[in-house]
């Protein structure tokens, strides 16, 4: 197992390099004077000169890339001139908030999605199946930002169940209850689309498994129907559900952008949008690289989970 994890970690290196190349290439598309574009309207001529020197912007692209990569590896992601602080500090601070939000959503969508898909498959063409299928269709069709706005309207403004925005109360203690209170709506709104996608997949994976011979064996043994569905079929279906959870984690992580904007959540998505509108490009660059890298590592976790779940995978 240890060796397997190590191997997966090593295999992440080329992916991470690829990500850095892509981000670099996108930034190289910027028209006009790159230093000026990167620094945006907050730049002084001194800043421009410093950056030109720092990134070697007069050098050939390849060389620029390696300078940039080298800096990143030393933890130097440059400076946000708009915020006047190192990119890394800002990104890490914001990333915490995003992780809380996206992590909660991921847990919600995994659990709800799998349960909904399983119930749906177990009652194929029955009432529960039809009801779930309809709700799922609604869920994957509704724009999360619109859903978020409607939730604010209903649950925050009209019913006053939850606060409308932010991560913490402006006054009052910052304890776990305050956080959960603020987290409930955005986490749910963010999880809806992924829940729908996972439910659909879980349903079809379950239908596939329920026809297998070992399900008939379980029934022939006299295993109760609940055991057949939840213990036998779901366990086998998980093998094809888990990889999709990994993909959905990426959707949740990036879908957080909308939810953070709608709910004023102080996460990295909102930071990126603000940074783009301000043309604070180094902050965008750093944020994108760091989030993408985290996602790569999360996928390794998914693979390891998969290998723990399926003894047939050689580790």
């Amino acid at each position, binding site marked *: 197992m240890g060796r397997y994890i190590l191997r997966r970690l090593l295999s992440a290196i080329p*992916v991470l390099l*690829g*990500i850095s190349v*892509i*981000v670099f290439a*996108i930034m190289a*598309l*910027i028209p006009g004077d790159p230093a000026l574009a990167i620094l945006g309207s907050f730049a002084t001529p001194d800043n421009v000169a410093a950056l030109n020197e720092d990134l070697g912007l007069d050098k050939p692209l390849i060389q620029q890339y390696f300078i940039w990569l080298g800096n990143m590896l030393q933890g130097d992601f440059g400076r946000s001139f708009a915020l006047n602080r190192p990119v890394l500090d800002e990104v890490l601070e914001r990333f915490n908030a995003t992780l809380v939000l996206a992590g909660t959503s991921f847990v919600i969508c995994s659990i709800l999605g799998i349960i909904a898909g399983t119930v749906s498959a177990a009652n*194929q063409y029955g009432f529960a199946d039809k009801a779930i299928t309809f709700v799922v*269709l*609604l869920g*994957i*069709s509704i*724009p999360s*930002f*619109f859903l978020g*706005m*409607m939730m*604010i*309207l209903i649950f925050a403004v009209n019913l006053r169940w939850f606060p409308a925005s932010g991560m913490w109360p402006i006054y009052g203690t910052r304890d776990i209850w305050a956080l959960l209170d603020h987290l409930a709506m955005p986490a749910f709104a963010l999880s809806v689309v992924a829940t729908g996608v996972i439910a659909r997949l879980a349903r*079809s994976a*379950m*239908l*596939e498994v*329920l*026809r*297998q*011979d*070992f399900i*008939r*064996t379980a*029934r*022939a*043994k*006299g*295993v*109760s*129907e609940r*055991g057949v569905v939840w213990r*036998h079929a779901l*366990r086998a279906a998980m093998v094809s559900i888990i990889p999709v959870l990994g993909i959905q984690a*990426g959707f949740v*992580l*990036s879908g957080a*952008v*909308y939810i953070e904007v709608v709910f004023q959540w102080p996460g990295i998505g909102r930071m*990126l*949008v603000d*940074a*783009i*509108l301000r043309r604070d*490009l180094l902050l*965008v660059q750093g944020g*994108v690289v760091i*989030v*993408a890298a985290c996602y*790569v590592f999360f996928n390794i976790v998914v693979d390891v989970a998969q290998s723990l*779940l399926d*003894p*047939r995978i050689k580790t």
Partner: protein
Amino acid sequence: MSFLALIARNRLALGGLIVMAVVILLALLTPLLPLAEPNITDTSNRFVRPFSEGAPLGTDHLGRDLLSRLMWGTRLSLAVGFAAALVAATLGAAIGIIAGYYGGRTDNIIMRGVDMLMAFPYILLALAIVAALGPGLVNALIAVAAVNIPFFARNIRGITVSIAHKEFVDAARLSGMSDARIILTEILPNVIPVIVVAMSTTIGWMILETAGLSFLGLGSQPPVADLGSMLGEARSALITNPHTSIVPGMMILVIVMAINLLGDGVRDALDPRLKSGALNRPLPATLVARDRTPAPQTQEGILALSELQTQFHVKDRVYRAVGGVSLAVKPGECLGIIGESGSGKSVTALSVMGLVASPPGLITNGSVWLDGEDLVGAPYATLRSLRGRKVAYIFQDPQATLHPLYRVGDQLIEAISSHRSISREEGRRKAIELLEAVRIPNAPARVNDYPHEMSGGMRQRVGIAMALANDPEVIIADEPTTALDVTVQAQILSLLDDLRRERGLAIIFITHDFGVVGQLCDRVAVMYAGRIVEQGPTRAILDAPRHPYTARLMACVPELGGGRRRLEAIPGLPPAVDRLPEGCAFAPRCDRARPDCTQGDIAFDADNARAVRCLYPVDQREAAQ
């Protein structure tokens, strides 16, 4: 045509299609409609409520007519979404075709790049692109198209690879056609349907994503608005004037939902498995026809089937898999059921405990008597408590019939704990005992194995151990040795033989192999096309088969485990059970057939120990020759 008909049959998809058609039509007609100017501000008329005079949907924060803005916004959103889909599909398909057609290094390099792009969280990549190009609707379109290219590239590449090695492509290449022409004339036409399906499933996403970027202020810039930026601008007035948000938001929802319905319909229409019902989930117990007539028990035995009929209903066709079978087995006795595949012997066996997959299976007539109780039509709870406890099954191919992800020990324990509560230690001890009973060496270690860690013979022993777990009274073994090699087969047979002598088990043994029958069974029933055609004591049948089918079956199999092919030595195929001929089902393959064989049913005295369903049975003298 048939494709459109299929979509039309799916009512939801049809609904989606109609909604989309209306929306697109309205979007096309927007410039012609008598609408207010969408971008003219009128600050004295801000936030007019919907359904007011002159502004059916009200006005927004600048006093602009919402209906007009909605129509123009829809037009813009649709245009951008479709354009993004088209760009992504075109470029993605081009990349996919090149990678798939040329293969080798080109393929390798391209697909590596595609994988890299797919390693990004989706929207993040779009954000990075917009960041570089700057906010704006065209840039948002480029970004959304770009992040969707890998999806198309990967799908199309897969299809292209499978086409690129077909004969017609090779032929074109040999005839000296250039690569470009081959791609355009041979590959592309075959790939286009796939592109269309992929587009239909992703276009909803793309409209959502462009709307999302506009919502964030990174897409269309004021005063021009698409649905997303309308929603974005309305957000600041969400609490005071929610209608300005609800109008564009609902429109996005309606459009995306209609597209998704349509996309699902397209996908379902193209999925052959849905049509054939191959994705149906089998119910916990086989369905029983409401108009079934139960049949009284006429033969003596712990388990007795009377006039059992099981059918498969697939679409409008009815397959009579079991067409009225009566048989019985006594404690300590072994009854063999023999026949070719498709003769209905397995379905007969599975019908006993309601394990025939249903849908499409349906027990239409007859009864299954266990200890004087009719199991057909018994409540599920009764069936479940009897399964494995009184009647246990051993299936063919334990590779597929054991759960691949649980240890065999746990699967054994579960067989017991399904019927009585048992502690962990006791369960484990019992599991080891069971494995020892089926002569698995080193049982204490083997209980922790997963099925894939065992050999085929070992797995089959586990299957038998599982059947023994609750000391059942009847064991139904469905070709338990077919997948095994000859030595292992013999071991398993002698094991079963010992068990039934020691424990007084009644065994129904299903096989297509007369050698196996001779080793184990006291009596034999020969099945053909869903019915028993001959039955009797094993010796009697082996010595003097009377039905021409039995005689032929035996002539081909001299010894134990001669492999599976021999049955093909009988000329012709068994009849499809949805088109059974009048009279004797074997007539088309029978060399003794006479005209009256195909006129009306042929009698069979099921309650007689020795019986044959034939008008001109083989007689003793002939058999001897």
